[in-house]
């Protein structure tokens, strides 16, 4: 999130798209309701289903799953055509005036940008992005046309790219009534006026597509055009689904990222530390400090073993080999027998992964499997599934019982980047231990084994600085916090924040973004609980937000180039003419040593050009989001006739998605998966909780009344659902929920039915049910390889009683 939960109270229009906020983030509604009650804010819910969020919203826009880019592209066009963007903001704070290379182009027939070429590594397409770069002026700076009239400037390219995204065309693609669609555009575009704030909040219904990253880009473009970035009530707000999933991401849960969003070194490009630092450090923007953060991280990893002569231990880091190692690819390796073991830590891919039945099959190829969880998961018990014979499975499974979150102390980072300490409430039962205890014991035993027996590449393990034990040999979490916060190597004293970090090995820091969150042993900032004094809900003395306790990032944009807040009612920062200094209700996210005009030149401090990127060469599948169908689509691409789904997307298996008309007839209905408030993720915690099982006792599938009548399905009867992934199989069973909350959609002149299923069920625990993800395809976004859970095709039939 660029903003935070409490800040929702300042929004004038809130758009919940690809996220069922009332259902999956109930507390958000407290602040949304406050905005509606106090300032008459409107809530738009864009969702295929009439959800619990739709039930309390002012406007519900039903859209076909997988067409968010079309919807958002239509909004971009609406804003541009009707001149509803915040012109001064766009001119000053975005790259709208920048000129792009003259040979940049887009083919509306194929849906491909200039620079398309074959990717020999993946036997797929990829882009050479040289034509997507900025033109340079005679001084070597990025060239711009401040009148924003040049056909090569970003604003005009944007107009041209989205010219075909008319309301009528979009209505036909997404399957929504055109008047409802236009009303949603009109309503949200009202926030382009100075002093108004529009908030877009989203979750997995934006990201879990083969074009998920581009959906997020589209939201960023809209918010930049309307001048909604950096100010109270605005922002691009990714609502995280678990209390600490933000923290997990910050701490590098993904294989291509190291703590603090430092890229994992690549074998082919980064042979030495000098190579890595020179290639990965830009010439301008905040990331020029990357060497300080990276070297401090190496010092935190390898301590006294990290010295300048050995590149601070750089060679002991694992390097990327150029192949995809994300979830789907990892399971493909498992299927091919390339993996020996797997540690599943609070993860249940046998239920949560796409094409989950295949995942459970592949798991039998492992020699060993460790599951660390509160209950016995489907992953740990894959061999117990009906139809599997344990005698045929040689995998050795270890289950380590873990403590629940209230049974251990530690900090959590919420969606708003607030790092909050949580004190332990009670002891864990039986032999359950905290995750930290488990990882500490695991590491110490591994280190002893490597020290005694050697083995392949023992250095990273035996040289790791790992001294977190207290005098009694038990893990001391404070020592871990100190290392994450960062310290001076000589004195051991904690650094104030990341401004103190150095690239010469004199400081160590486990995560530069968190630096400052635990800089005082007696009063760690993450444990602060002071009431707010700023009057706009900033809560600067409550916990600690990364970076540097800033509550709204890019907050320079909340004021005009002269430093006057766009909205004086809820100012974030402002320039005081009398004292000649910056003042604010938030920690400024820019250099306060600069005058208003100078700081306004680069308000997006993380980027070299310092401007919000309406056009960006960063993503691998295009500089501007374009409408591609999901991999499993019921229709042709109405905008780009020769394109269907994202041409750059990650595909792993042949004959895996619906590509022929014969298959479309076989699997005619659009399936979307989701969560309900009563259960959590794969249900491992909640399906073992009788009070929650009572409320949501069985797996169900939501079907509209017309389809139910057509297929002879009564409300509450048993149905079987199948997809291309379960071809020639019986399919999975669920109870039918025949509802008026789903309606058939007219797409491309044809009636399409959308059905929805929660994915919380599995074959273990107190409350058992089929795994909805057995139906979903293993295809991924080209940038992140996030699987396409939210849109696929299926067929349904009534089960004979």
């Amino acid at each position, binding site marked *: 999130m660029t903003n935070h939960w409490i800040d929702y109270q300042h929004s004038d229009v809130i758009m919940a798209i690809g996220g069922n906020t009332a259902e999956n983030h109930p507390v958000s509604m407290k602040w949304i*309701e*406050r905005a509606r009650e106090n300032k008459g804010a409107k809530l738009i819910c864009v969702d295929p289903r*009439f959800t*619990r969020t*739709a039930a309390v919203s002012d406007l519900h826009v039903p859209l076909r799953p997988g067409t968010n880019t079309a919807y958002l592209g239509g909004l971009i066009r609406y804003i541009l055509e009707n001149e509803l963007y915040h012109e001064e903001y766009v001119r000053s704070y975005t790259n709208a005036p920048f000129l792009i290379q003259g040979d940049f182009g887009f083919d509306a027939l194929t849906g491909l940008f200039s620079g398309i070429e074959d990717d020999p590594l993946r036997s797929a397409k990829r882009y050479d992005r040289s034509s997507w770069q900025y033109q340079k002026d005679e001084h070597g700076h990025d060239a711009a046309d401040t009148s924003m009239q040049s056909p090569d400037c970003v604003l005009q390219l944007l107009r041209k790219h989205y010219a075909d995204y008319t309301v009528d065309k979009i209505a036909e693609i997404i399957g929504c009534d055109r008047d409802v669609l236009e009303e949603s555009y009109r309503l949200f575009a009202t926030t382009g006026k100075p002093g108004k704030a529009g908030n877009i909040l989203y979750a997995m219904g934006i990201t879990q597509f083969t074009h998920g990253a581009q959906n997020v880009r589209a939201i960023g473009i809209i918010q930049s055009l309307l001048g909604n970035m950096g100010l109270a009530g605005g922002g691009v707000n990714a609502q995280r689904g678990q209390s600490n999933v933000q923290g997990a991401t910050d701490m590098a849960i993904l294989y291509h990222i190291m703590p603090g969003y430092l890229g994992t070194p690549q074998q082919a490009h980064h042979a030495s530390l000098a190579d890595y630092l020179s290639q990965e450090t830009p010439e301008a923007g905040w990331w020029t400090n990357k060497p300080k953060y990276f070297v401090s991280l190496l010092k935190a990893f390898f301590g006294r073993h990290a010295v300048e002569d050995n590149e601070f231990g750089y060679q002991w880091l694992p390097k990327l080999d150029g192949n995809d190692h994300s979830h789907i690819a990892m399971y493909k390796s498992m299927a091919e027998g390339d993996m020996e073991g797997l540690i599943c830590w609070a993860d249940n891919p046998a239920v949560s992964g796409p094409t989950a039945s295949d995942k459970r099959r592949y798991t039998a190829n492992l020699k060993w499997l460790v599951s660390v969880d509160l209950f016995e998961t489907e992953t740990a018990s894959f061999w117990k599934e009906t139809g599997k014979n344990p005698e045929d499975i040689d995998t050795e499974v270890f289950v380590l019982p873990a403590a629940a979150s209230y049974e251990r102390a530690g900090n959590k980072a919420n969606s708003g980047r607030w790092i909050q300490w949580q004190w332990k409430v009670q002891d864990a039962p039986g032999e359950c231990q905290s995750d930290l205890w488990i990882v500490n014991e695991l590491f110490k035993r591994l280190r002893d084994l490597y020290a005694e027996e050697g083995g392949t590449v023992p250095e990273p393990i035996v040289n790791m600085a790992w001294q977190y034990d207290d005098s009694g040999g038990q893990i001391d979490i404070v020592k871990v916090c100190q290392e994450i916060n960062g310290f001076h190597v000589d004195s051991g004293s904690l650094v104030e924040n990341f401004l103190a970090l150095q690239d010469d090995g004199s400081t160590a820091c486990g995560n530069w973004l968190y630096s400052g969150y635990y800089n005082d042993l007696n009063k760690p900032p993450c444990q602060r609980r002071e009431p707010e004094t700023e009057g706009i809900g900033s809560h600067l003395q409550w916990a600690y937000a990364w970076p540097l306790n800033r509550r709204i990032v890019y907050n320079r944009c909340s004021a005009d180039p002269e430093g006057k807040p766009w909205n004086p009612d809820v100012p974030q920062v402002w320039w005081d003419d009398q004292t000649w200094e910056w003042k604010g209700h938030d920690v400024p996210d820019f250099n306060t040593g600069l005058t208003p005009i100078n700081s306004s030149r680069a308000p997006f401090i993380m980027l070299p050009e310092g401007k919000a990127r309406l056009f960006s060469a960063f993503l691998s599948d295009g500089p501007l989001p374009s409408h591609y169908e999901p991999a499993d689509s019921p229709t042709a691409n109405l905008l780009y006739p020769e394109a269907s789904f994202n041409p750059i997307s990650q595909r792993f298996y042949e004959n895996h998605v619906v590509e022929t008309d014969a298959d479309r007839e076989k699997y005619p209905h659009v399936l979307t998966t989701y969560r*309900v408030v*009563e259960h959590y993720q794969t249900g491992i915690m909640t399906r073992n909780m009788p009070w929650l099982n009572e409320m949501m006792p069985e797996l169900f599938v939501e079907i509209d009344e017309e389809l139910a009548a057509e297929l002879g399905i009564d409300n*509450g009867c048993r149905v079987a659902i199948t997809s291309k992934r379960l071809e020639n199989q019986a399919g999975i069973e669920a109870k039918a929920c025949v*509802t008026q909350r789903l309606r058939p959609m007219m797409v491309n002149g044809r009636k399409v039915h959308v059905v929805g299923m929660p994915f919380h069920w599995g074959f273990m625990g107190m409350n058992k049910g089929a795994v909805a993800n057995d139906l979903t395809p293993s295809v991924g976004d080209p940038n992140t390889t996030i699987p396409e859970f939210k849109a696929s095709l299926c067929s349904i039939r009534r089960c004979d009683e």
Partner: protein
Amino acid sequence: MRSQICLIDTSKCIGCRACQSACKQWNQLPAESTTFQGSYENPPYFSCMTWTKVVFREHNDNGRTSWYMSKQGCMHCTDAACILACPTGAIHHTDHETVAINEIKCIGCNYCAAACAFRVIGFDRSANFAKKCTFCYERIRSGLKPACTSACPTGSLVFGEERTIIRQAQDRIEQLRANGRSQARIYGLNEVQGTAMLYVLEDFPDRYGLPADPSVPIQTRIWNAIYGPLRIAVVLAVTFSLWANFNKNRELDEGKASRQDAGGGKR
């Protein structure tokens, strides 16, 4: 005059059912064994194990979908049919104007459940007495909010001074009407002479599954008029029989104890 009541603003209810599970948790009510029957609403009925729940109702008016959710349970009526129907005086108004069931006096006749317009009284067959929401009497006596209210994340449930809550409801109605909800109304202010649950509805009560015009059935009034004067006699009779039973049990127990003593002595 009541001191404290609960606002149930259905326009802010997201159907998360935190109230429903908080009630079960605080009162340690066991989970019912349910099945999915085509609606999110579960369990299907109020019972001795389910005192409050969120009722879900779907509507389609000329293509406009609505999905109403409302927390329902005992309304703690002023003119309470259950109190009038109870032959033993087990059901009564407490000092906080809540409606409570005295389990010792309850004879399990179930007349209260039949008389209740809201159908929220459950019957515990094993213990043979009626059970329902207590409005968390022990909590509010200790200065706490009812469990359901303290769990609500959106401000749909608000517990407070009656006057403040009524004003809040009236303001909200005005706001909703100005926002185009012309059918917005308060429910529970005048119904059955006022209840401890004051609803803000955006539509007719029956569209939420609430009775349009709740009242005490005429049969209950007649029954109470005839039976009322005899109640004291019934209470005395019940008390006497309980006392007699208690004495009998004590005699039996004492007898058992002396026999055991005797047995011990023999050995």
